[in-house]
């Protein structure tokens, strides 16, 4: 009985060895492969902007500084009493728009400041009613991050506006 088992086992081993002959041929094609992997860790963030407003006889002088680490676009809106006559000295970089905002038409890079926006005003004639009245000109500034559209063009998405206090 024991002898029979040995024969059987050896025969099976022999058959298995022979049966693997076919596999060798199937793998005989010339093939090769190589691969590479890599990633990029995204540094995404919101910047912060600070507004500087000086007032003198020529009006209000507004300069916005990007104090954060990321580029952005900025715009301002000016609020003033109806009887104050306001006009702007925009320079080359600021642009008035029909939506009531004044846009800085360049990317404001990290740590850069805008050129000056000069808001000039003319006070109403002084009379008994308004001789002690104070007039305020309030400037609101907003920014939006720099992103690229589907065609790869730089865009300011003003649907996505951020304010920092």
């Amino acid at each position, binding site marked *: 009985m024991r002898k029979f088992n*040995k*024969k059987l*086992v*050896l*025969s099976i*081993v*022999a*058959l298995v*060895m*022979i049966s*693997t*002959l076919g596999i*060798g*041929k*199937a*793998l*005989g*094609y*010339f*093939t*090769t*492969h*190589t*691969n*590479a*992997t*890599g*990633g*990029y*860790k*995204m*540094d*995404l*963030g*919101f910047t912060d902007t600070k507004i500087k407003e000086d007032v003198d006889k020529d009006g209000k002088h507004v300069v916005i500084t990007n104090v954060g680490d*990321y*580029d952005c676009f900025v715009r301002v809106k000016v609020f003033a009493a109806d009887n104050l006559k306001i006009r702007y000295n925009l320079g080359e970089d600021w642009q008035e728009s029909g939506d009531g905002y004044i846009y800085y038409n360049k990317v404001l890079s*990290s740590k850069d400041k805008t050129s000056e926006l000069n808001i000039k005003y003319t006070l109403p004639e002084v009379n008994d009613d308004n001789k002690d009245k104070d007039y305020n000109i309030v400037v609101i500034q907003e920014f939006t*991050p*720099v*992103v*690229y*559209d*589907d065609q*790869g063009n730089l*865009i300011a*998405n003003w649907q*996505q506006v*951020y*304010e*920092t*206090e």
Partner: protein
Amino acid sequence: MKKVKSIFMKPTILLGIAAVLLLGSGVGSARAALTYYSDQYSASMDMSTIGVSLKENGKVVSSKTYDDQGDATTNGEGKLLQNLLKDDEKFALGKTYDEKLAVENSGNIDTFVRVVLTKSWQDKEGKNVDLSPALIELGFNQDGWVINEAQSTDERVVLYYTKVVESKKTTPDFMKTIRISNQLSTMYTKVEDKKTIKYQYTYNGYTFTLDAEVDAVQTHNAKDAIKSAWGIDVNVNDDETKLSLG
């Protein structure tokens, strides 16, 4: 007749014959690609080597080339996207970055090649996350390359070069650009702390990863070789210079 039968019944002899056959089979498999051809052809194929290299922006980043002894030589660091941004450039969502990838035949026999690209996201800790790989947008080139849509998903793209790549020649770029969708710019949280308002992008610090695997196979008996190596049925023209997907 009886004597012959008894010899084969002896397992030790059978085992011996099996061993001899197996030894012989090694030679057979090494030359398997040549068995369809004449002796003369076989002799010239004796020195045949296959090799493939992946090039990123013109530089080999990874390669595997066999010598005539059957030993493989690998080259390149196997890394992609190491120089995505120029010096002092800041990463921006939606911006299209150059990422030109091509395949070079670094062996001495003609080959057909394919590329399997896999996209994935990792969080700040480096763990894979379930953020859509479709947000990683790759710009492909159709110059001789074809995407097998049946094998491709949002995560994986499989491209086949439809022509033979001759020894030492490089294919046209199969990929030109990489871009992260600007949809991510709309995903942020607002954090208010007394008088301070801060915004934080949800996916700041996440990593996008690209893996490229390049496969090459001999052009001789290409249809069977491709079926065997890549597990896919392709059509190959009679002179084995072009392939198309079924």
